[in-house]
C-alpha cells in the first residue's frame, strides 16, 4: 500500500484520484519529502495546462462574484503559533516542567472522539496544519500525525503501529503552551491504528505531546510523554 501511495502524486495533482485514495494520499504526502516535492512540481505542470485553456469570461460573472463575496465571511488569518511549532525545548521537558506548575483552571471534560466528523473534513480544511510526532525514547515505535484546524476547533489524529494502552487507559493528546500544557483529548487505537477527530479549545499551542492516561482523562500528564513534536 505504501509503495503504491508513492506513485499517486501525478494523479493527485490532476485531481484524478477518487475520494478514498485522495484522502489516503493527503495523509501521506505531507510526511514524505519526495511526494511533497512531486506534488508541487506536478501542480505547476497542471497550472500550465490550466493556463492553456484561458477563455474570456462572460461579462456578467464579475458582478455576480462581487455581489457574493460582499456577503461572504473570510477565514481568520493563520496565527504564527499555529504554523511554527518551533520550541527547541523538548516536549518531554516541557511536560515535566508543566506538571510542576499550577495548571489551567477549570475541569477538563473528557470526550472520546466524535465519529461523526470525518478526518477528511479536517484534513481538507483550508487552514489545516499538519504536524508529525516522533516517538520518544520511551515508546517502542509507532507513528502519529496531528492535523489541526483552528477554524474548526478540531484536531484529526492519524496514527499507526500504536501499542495497546492497556485496560482502562487511553492515549491523551496535549497542547504544549507557553506556560504549561492543556489537554486536547483522548483517543484509542483499533488494531494499532487511529483515525479520529477531537474537538479542541482555541489555544495558541507551540506543539503537541502524547501520554497514556486513564480513559477517564487527566487534567495534567501523569505519565511520561511517548510522542513529541519533531521540532
Amino acid at each position, binding site marked *: 500500500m505504501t509503495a503504491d501511495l508513492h506513485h499517486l502524486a*501525478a494523479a493527485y495533482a490532476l485531481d484524478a484520484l477518487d475520494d478514498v485514495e485522495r484522502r489516503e494520499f493527503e495523509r501521506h504526502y505531507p510526511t514524505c519529502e519526495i511526494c511533497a516535492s512531486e506534488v*508541487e512540481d506536478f501542480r505547476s505542470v497542471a497550472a*500550465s495546462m490550466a*493556463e492553456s485553456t484561458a477563455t474570456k469570461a462572460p461579462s456578467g*460573472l464579475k458582478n455576480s462574484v462581487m455581489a457574493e463575496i460582499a456577503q461572504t465571511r*473570510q477565514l481568520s488569518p493563520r496565527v504564527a503559533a499555529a504554523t511554527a511549532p518551533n520550541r527547541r525545548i523538548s516536549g518531554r521537558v516541557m511536560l515535566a516542567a508543566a506538571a510542576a506548575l499550577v495548571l489551567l483552571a477549570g475541569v477538563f471534560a473528557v470526550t472520546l472522539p466524535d465519529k461523526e466528523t470525518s478526518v477528511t473534513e479536517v484534513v481538507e480544511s483550508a487552514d489545516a496544519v499538519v504536524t508529525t510526532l516522533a516517538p520518544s525514547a520511551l515508546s517502542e515505535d509507532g507513528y502519529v500525525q496531528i492535523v489541526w484546524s483552528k477554524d474548526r476547533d478540531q484536531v484529526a489524529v492519524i496514527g499507526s503501529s500504536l501499542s495497546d494502552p492497556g485496560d482502562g487507559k487511553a492515549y491523551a493528546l496535549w497542547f504544549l503552551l507557553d506556560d504549561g500544557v492543556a489537554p486536547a483529548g483522548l483517543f484509542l487505537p483499533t488494531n494499532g491504528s487511529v483515525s479520529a477527530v477531537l474537538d479542541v479549545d482555541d489555544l495558541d499551542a507551540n506543539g503537541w505531546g502524547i501520554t497514556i492516561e486513564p480513559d477517564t482523562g487527566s487534567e495534567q500528564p501523569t505519565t511520561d510523554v511517548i510522542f513529541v513534536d519533531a521540532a
Partner: protein
Amino acid sequence: MRDEIVGRRGTMSEMKLRLLRFADPDAPPDLGELMVRAGKGDEQSFGQIYDELSALVYGVALRVVRNPGIAEEVAQEAFVEMWRVAPRFDTTRGSVHGWASTITHRKAVDRVRSEQARSDREDRDHVRSYEAPTDIVIDTIERAENRSEVLDALDTLTDAQREAVTLAYFGGNTYREVAALLDTPEGTVKTRIRDGLIKLRDQLGTVQ
C-alpha cells in the same frame, strides 16, 4: 500589459510585473500585493484579482465541465472560495495563478463527479463522445504563446501518455475512469499519467 500579468507561470510574470512597476509608476500593484489587501477584506483589490484571473478560472471550468452555464457557476464558486481563504494565502509559497487553478480545477472536478452521480448515463455519453486529445485547445483562447508552449510540450508525449493526461485533467476523470474508458489496466494508466507529467515538467521547466 495584460499578457505580462497572466503569463504561463505566475511567479515569473509577477516578477516581470514587479520590474515593470519600476518603469511605470502608474502600473497596477502585483497580484501578491493585491492578495494581501484582499486578505484584509479589500473588495476592490479582489476585483482587480478577478480581472487578472477570470480568463484562467473560467477557461479551466469550461474546459472541464464543458457547459458554459455550469462553467460560470463553477467559476463563481471558485472565486468565492478564493475570497474566503485569501487571508490564509501565503505569498511566499507558490504563485497566485497556480493557487487559483488548483482551486478551480478541484471545484470543476467536484461538479463533474456530482453531476455524474446524479445523471450517470447522460454523463457517460458525454465522456464517451470526448475525442481526446487533438482538440486540446478551444477557439476562444487568449494567450497563443502560452498555448503553443503547452501544446509543444504535449507533443513530446507518447500518444498514450497524452491521452491519459488529457482525459484525466481536462476530462475530469479519475485514473480508474480513464482506465475504463481506454480499456487499459489501471496500473498502466497511472504510469502513463506519471511519466507524461514528468516529461511535461521537464519540457515546461516548471521545476522550482
